[in-house]
């Protein structure tokens, strides 16, 4: 059964550009999306591509100009208040906690809002605490917390009521690698325990993409890709980069190497190549290069996943050609 159904959603905003002039900007353009119960979907896109706007529409926070969003069969804008009982929403760039209080004061208020008892509170607290230790933070004033500490409390605050739908907008931003990993571990456990539907936007690709079921790419308000992550990043595994340093400077630059091997850059003393593994093995390429000159040093690397997704943002349809 589908948890989320986004049907031809468009969102335009009017901006004042002069004394009496207004211009219209399209943030979302006819976006369709269906997410099944228990699915973990990553929404990817460049800054300003419309990811957060889409999440806000899905959460019922803003009203689409056209189209509708249904969460668990209910219109998300009209029934936002009821639906938020089933949702845990995190916006990384907007603090949700009352800053002049201790964390426990805010969490106690949420206990009342969601009608939770002490046992339910402790259960979720322990689950979060296992991955993102926060017991020392409860008595601390929020305004005195570091960003990473605030994120822990915010994550705790959005899962207290065991929501069936998690909407996480850039939850990893500003966290150190260890904290990012802890948060990812927590999401993994939460998923295993409650099988929620999860929508997540992020720029931390490699770690996150290994866990999601599906990826959706939004570009200029349009959905440009919706499919399995494997397909999205398969080129990541099918290509390698080889950097070679010559023992002696080459007299002539190489104009071409082999079919499926592309020269990325070269000087007299070194060369960097991109190899399509389906066409040639690394061994073949190195053997070819040895014929061209004496090699002092070489390095074989995978493509950067960030680069893979970056080029996807440019044009996902040319994925296999450009990467």
């Amino acid at each position, binding site marked *: 059964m589908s948890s989320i159904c986004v049907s031809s959603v468009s969102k335009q905003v009017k901006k004042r550009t002069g004394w009496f002039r207004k211009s219209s900007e399209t943030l979302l353009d006819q976006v369709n999306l269906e997410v099944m119960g228990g699915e973990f979907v990553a929404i990817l896109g460049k*800054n*300003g591509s419309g990811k957060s706007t889409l999440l806000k529409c899905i959460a019922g926070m803003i*009203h689409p100009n056209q189209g509708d969003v249904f969460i668990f069969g209910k219109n998300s804008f009209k029934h936002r208040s009821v639906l938020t009982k089933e949702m845990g929403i995190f916006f990384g760039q907007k603090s949700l906690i*009352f800053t002049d*209080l201790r964390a426990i*004061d805010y969490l106690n*208020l949420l206990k*009342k809002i969601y009608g939770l008892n002490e046992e339910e509170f402790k259960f979720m607290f322990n689950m979060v605490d296992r991955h993102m230790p926060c017991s020392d933070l409860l008595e601390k004033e929020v305004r005195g917390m570091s960003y990473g500490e605030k994120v822990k409390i915010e994550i705790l605050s959005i899962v207290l009521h065991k929501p069936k739908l998690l909407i996480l*907008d850039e939850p990893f931003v500003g966290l150190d690698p260890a904290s990012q990993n802890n948060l990812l571990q927590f999401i993994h456990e939460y998923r295993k325990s409650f099988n929620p539907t999860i929508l997540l936007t992020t720029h931390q690709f490699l770690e996150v993409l290994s866990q999601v079921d599906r990826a959706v790419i939004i570009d200029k308000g349009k959905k440009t890709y919706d499919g399995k992550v494997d397909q999205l990043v398969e080129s990541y595994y099918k290509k390698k980069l080889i950097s070679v340093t010559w023992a002696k400077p080459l007299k002539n630059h190489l104009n071409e190497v082999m079919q499926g091997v592309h020269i990325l850059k070269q000087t007299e003393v070194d060369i960097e190549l991109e190899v399509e593994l389906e066409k040639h093995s690394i061994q073949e390429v190195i053997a070819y290069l040895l014929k061209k000159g004496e090699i002092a040093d070489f390095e074989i690397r995978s493509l950067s996943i960030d680069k893979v997704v970056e080029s996807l943002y440019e044009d996902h349809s040319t994925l296999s050609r450009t990467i």
Partner: protein
Amino acid sequence: MKTIQHYQGLFNESVRISVQRLKLYFPSVFLETIANILFVLTVIVFWNIIYENFPNNKLGFTTEEMYVYLAFVEIFMGLKAGLVFGTGKFWRAIYSGQLLSFMIRPIHPMLLYLINGVNLHLLFRPIPIVVFLLYRSRDLWTISSLLLGLVVVFASLLMVGLMELTFSTFALYFTKMNAMDEIVDSLLEFTKYPITAFHFGWQLLFTIVFPFMFYSTIPAVVTLESKDIELNMVLGGCLFFLLWGTLISILWKKGMKRYDGFGG
């Protein structure tokens, strides 16, 4: 019944939060109380000078009656700061996109905003000076007349809170509402002088259209003259809440459809 219990629980929690704030920021509250006493003392000096130099003034209050008036000004201001301080600043939450953070919970975002804005500790601030003023004018009031005056102050507090929230809601349409800060200041300006000093036409305007009379002038009059609250005042109040309640409801619903939040 469950809903009432739920909201009672929320109210209790907001009281608990306020007590916590009092604990956390006690030195600040203490200093605010001292500052408030000094401020009101200067106001008392001001009015004493006016009464000494202009004995035939048409303020509508004697010197001692003015103490009762000033006590209600302080009660009103204390309650305003303690209970509905943020209503006039709600537009900022809309403008900054902070409103979105109030929308992720199963509670009306305005209510959550108000709960966050409850500063019950600020209620303690005017207590010393109010006690002093009421003591100085102790022959002019009775407990029952004072309680009646307090009922009117509470009603006016709800009125001004509702008005400020309504004006703030315009930020959903116009985004930035710096004018709101000016409006809030203007609304509170009418607590400085007893409106009994104004011509009848103004008094009528400030009773029916803008309820400035209810802030402190009517509470003082009700207390001093031991008047009962008349039926037409109750009906007028109900009409006020109905009109402004309807207005804010329409503005909110339509405005939310236009709201874009703020950034990603």
